[in-house]
């Protein structure tokens, strides 16, 4: 069985830091905690300040805001976005 993949969306500061607007990520395991995704992304994009951006951001999974990342397990196929502090208006 092939390893599960997710799509990560980057906006605003996260997009500027990584130079990407979206990225396919292969999960290291078929059941992967969302709370581990930040470290995985930082390891793929080191030294661009992504860790600091993630500290002030929230996650969305399949276009729903995540209240508690500790309760979410990724299984592949999800669309995950880093939601930086918003600035509409």
């Amino acid at each position, binding site marked *: 069985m092939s390893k599960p993949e997710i799509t990560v969306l*980057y906006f*605003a500061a996260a*997009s500027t830091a990584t130079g990407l607007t*979206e990225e396919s990520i292969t999960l290291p395991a078929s059941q992967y905690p969302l709370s581990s995704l930040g470290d995985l992304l930082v390891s793929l994009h080191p030294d661009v300040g992504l860790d600091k951006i993630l500290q002030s951001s929230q996650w969305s999974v399949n*276009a*729903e805001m995540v209240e508690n990342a500790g309760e979410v397990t990724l299984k592949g196929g999800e669309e995950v976005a880093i*939601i930086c502090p918003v*600035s509409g208006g």
Partner: protein
Amino acid sequence: MATSHPSTSVEAREEVGRSICVLTYKSLDIGEITQSVSDDSAGATAIFIGTTRNSYQGKVVTRLEYQAYSKLAIKTMTDIIRTTHQSVTRSAHHSAPATVPSIISCALHHRLGIVPVGEPSIVIAVSSPHRKEAFVACEQILEEVKQKVQIWKREYYEGEREEEAEWKTNSG
């Protein structure tokens, strides 16, 4: 011009009853948006227009750029409209029958992409039988949008490198 349009930052529109939420790359037409909430039962229409200001802390702003996670942003916008419809109640001094809504219609339009100085980035129109509810709802919608909707603003300053243009935050 260093503009980035993520493929996920697209135009969107969704109706909620008689109200509408719109994300668009086109200029916002204030007259058209105002007209869209008009109703013969309205005694008041409150309008908020947010425009790009020409300065920030002494720096000259040349333009703003907005991007959205449209799929999620439009859901958040419609949630705000629904909540506002429910929470803004009739003025205490008006004893209208319960069948008369306190808010008739709302239009919430936010622009995406480059917004030059002086042009609107957000227009909110609310029609109501009475002025008080129209004002309250209009302000409530604006504050909720600024806090919650998945839209991001980047500000470009005169004489500064475009790559260093700052992504703003509304909180803190």
